[in-house]
């Protein structure tokens, strides 16, 4: 074999293509064709082998450099103080989480159709379902959905199917992006979406469900008992969007007679990653389990009587029931559910409670200190957990710009919802020093 340099660069093979030229020739001979092109003869010739004008390929070495440059031009929150929440939260993730989900037997498998060689995935989902039931106080959980907002949308559709009604009511204090997703999904299904103001008036008597968020988008607690009562009075289900970290200390929705619980599971050991992959939580009363979307894992026994796990209630699912399935969901966020399972196991009851307490005390310290600054006030007086809205003396966009200069990512500008409102989030990751720096900078704006 010759080894001319100009040939070498031309033929640098891909490590993911093990067939050699000799293999290819032998295989083509077996198939009985002369060239690989003959295998593509069903594609009409006019469409075959288009010119793509793609750039030349890069090696691992070059691409790592290139991707390092792209990553480096973002502001990583490992380097800045950050007070953003509003649906994506910065919580501490113990290293054990990433180590466990990096076991490639987990992450290179697919949907556990062959239960005998998928017990790792199946048993861990059974753990996940159990843990979600334990923290929410609900009876059953599925294996996870795409994210918090799509979970809420699927819950609304499920409620409509259960109640045989078409109207969906949503409380005005629900996260507006969730509201937008609800709008898209309900328009698709021709289910009118009605907004209910915070006093609960205007709840339509013929609605299938009322969706609330606890704590709500602005961070504070809703009088959930009154909403549960109002919804049940008109025969509607109540759907509660929860923050799973808050459940470390707060009363779970199961205690309030809630029918369906959904939520964003990202807080449970999943990086922020610009918004995905995340994890939709979905739990409900046992009575409704056959109407649930998504995968559900059940415990059973094998032919020798040993305990094992399988996908169950599969007749709800699209690959069996097609257009009469409870949802179209198939591939979801299984590995993220595993992350949440490892996270909750690592924290345990002491750890989850402590994370919630740290968030609570730090957020309240920050709120108290900000309130002391001239011109700033808290927009709401209700109890809150880790997020709160501050009314600012100048437009919040200006404040965020000033904070960014000080290497602080400020809050979410909600001035379109609350006059001069800035939605701040404080978690266990924020140190006293960071909070004090935030307060100092706010005072100087």
């Amino acid at each position: 074999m010759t080894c001319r340099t100009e040939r070498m660069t031309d033929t640098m093979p891909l490590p993911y293509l093990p067939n050699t030229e000799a293999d290819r020739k032998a295989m083509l001979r077996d198939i009985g064709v002369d060239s690989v092109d003959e295998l593509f003869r069903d594609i009409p010739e006019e469409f075959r082998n288009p010119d793509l004008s793609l750039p030349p390929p890069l090696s691992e070495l070059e691409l790592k450099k290139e991707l390092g440059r792209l990553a480096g031009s973002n502001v990583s929150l490992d380097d800045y103080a950050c007070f953003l929440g509003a649906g994506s939260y910065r919580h501490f993730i113990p290293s054990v989480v990433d180590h466990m989900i990096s076991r490639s037997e987990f992450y290179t498998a697919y949907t556990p159709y062959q239960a005998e060689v998928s017990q790792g995935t199946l048993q861990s989902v059974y753990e996940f379902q159990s843990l979600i039931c334990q923290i929410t106080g609900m009876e059953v959980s599925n294996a996870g959905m795409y994210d918090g907002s799509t979970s809420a949308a699927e819950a609304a559709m499920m409620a409509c199917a259960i109640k045989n009604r078409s109207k969906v009511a949503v409380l005005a204090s629900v996260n507006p992006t969730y509201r937008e997703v609800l709008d898209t999904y309900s328009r698709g299904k021709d289910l009118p979406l009605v907004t209910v103001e915070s006093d609960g008036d205007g709840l339509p008597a013929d609605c299938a469900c009322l969706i609330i968020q606890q704590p709500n988008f602005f961070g504070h607690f809703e009088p959930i008992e009154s909403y549960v009562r109002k919804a049940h009075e008109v025969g509607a289900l109540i759907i509660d969007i929860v923050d799973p970290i808050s459940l470390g200390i707060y009363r779970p929705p199961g205690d309030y007679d809630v029918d369906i619980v959904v939520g964003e599971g990202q807080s449970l050991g999943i990086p922020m990653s610009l918004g995905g992959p995340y994890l939709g939580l979905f739990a409900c009363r046992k009575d409704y389990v056959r109407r649930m979307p998504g995968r559900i894992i059940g415990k059973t026994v094998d032919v020798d009587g040993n305990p094992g796990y399988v996908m169950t209630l599969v007749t709800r699912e699209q690959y069996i029931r097609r257009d009469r399935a409870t949802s179209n969901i198939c591939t979801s966020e299984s590995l993220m559910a595993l992350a949440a399972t490892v996270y909750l196991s690592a924290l345990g009851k002491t750890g989850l409670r402590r994370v919630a307490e740290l968030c609570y005390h730090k957020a309240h310290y920050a709120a108290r200190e900000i309130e002391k600054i001239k011109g700033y006030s808290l927009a709401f007086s209700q109890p809150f957990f880790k997020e709160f809205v501050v009314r600012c003396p100048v437009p919040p966009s200006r404040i965020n710009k000033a904070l960014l200069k000080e290497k602080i990512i400020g809050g979410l500008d909600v001035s379109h919802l609350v006059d001069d409102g800035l939605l701040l989030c404080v978690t266990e990751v924020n140190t006293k020093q960071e909070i004090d720096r935030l307060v100092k900078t706010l005072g100087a704006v």
Partner: protein
Amino acid sequence: MKRHELLPDISRPGRIGCTLPDLDVPSSEMPSEELLREELEIPEVSEVDLVRYFTALSKLNYGVDTGFYPLGSCTMKYNPKWHEDVARLPGFAAIHPHQPEESLQGALELMFRLQEYLSQVTGMDATSLVPVAGAHGELAGLYMVRAYHEDRGDSARKKILLTDSSHGTNPASAAMCGMEAGVVASDENGDLDLSSLDSMMNDEVAALTLTMPSTLGLFDPKIAEIARLVHDRGGLLGGDGANLNALLGKARFGDLGFDYVQLNLHKTFSTPHGGGGPGSGPVCARQNLADFMPTPLVADDDGRYRLVSPPKTIGRIATFYGNFSVMVKAYAYARSLGEEELKRISEDAVLNANYLKENLKEYYHLPYDRICMHEVVFSGKKQKAKGVATLDIAKRLLDYGLHPPTVYFPLIVSEALMTEPTETESKETLDEYIAAMKEIAREAEENPEVLHSAPLNTPIRRLDDARAFRQLDLRWEMKGRENSGG
């Protein structure tokens, strides 16, 4: 730790699996009692027990890294390891979706380039990366179809046509979009039956959605006629791109007449399947549908990257912008390939499938004996005649240390074995699979009992699905356990 123990079994009061800081600010008064929970019953496990527990679980799994995984229509190709590293760079992992755009320029640039790349490879005008899974992308496509017709004032189109070999997600997505699904038959070659389409394609039909190549692993040579017929009658042609691995650099959906196509980056672009996600299901569309795409898209505004909303967008379909870390891996893969490599992927995928087909068709019934694309669908009906079901064949493969193909799908092939080897498997691996399948065919003739009782060598044997369904056990409870500490 015993094999069948669960987390609550290894829990002991006072244990924990990580450390957390002390409070460094003055504490505040706790909220009123009625807001607080009485008890929180979740397991307390030490870090070492935790690691051993999940490590032991992982060993019960079979993944692409374990061995051959020819699950049809799932494209279980190898997942390059270094992609995992780059997706975890702090500049990609530790960024918040609501950060100011100027602090996210690298991430947005990557998304923009991936949009452009996928548009180029599919021959489309625009790409939205928001859908997080294939079925999510399908749904986005159908919302776009509906919005397109409504925008033209043509709201009578309430029907989606699909083929009898389509994925279950296709009719389920149609139902979620408020559409009725109509089924077009396949002809004797496994292609779409043109006369059936002709009779169904009227002014109530919003779109025909077609998996290309089909789930039978076949490319329909009549595609141009199909596209013409659908368009002439005012409909749109939608693509399910689950099987794009057959067509990379070989043909483009846009050129073939499709108006949109949804992709699966976790199949074609080598990102890991994660045991059932995370995936990524971008939707790529031609100009006529581009204005309706889900929000947001990334735009290049003179070198400054911004999130923008298409003018007639169907709206938001996920909380944020899609599965970003999956996009990083897909981009890394895409840029590792030039035009030659891209073509080579599909050529080897198709070559491998045809090699399996030729070597096994004597032993297993081949319902459509023609050149196949990236996958081949056999039928176990020869073996069924001997009392051996396709399920038995699948379970026996497990004993040979191999993952079975997709079974009992597509529905139009009885006892289907839908086999997709992918390009990342060597001839030796294929030969090993061929040998096992031949041996199983022999066993079906000579010793069917061994097939009925398979698998014998797996961590657990055949499970009782009926019992799981009848006696629902979907969770454990902490209460009443000896080790719970009261």
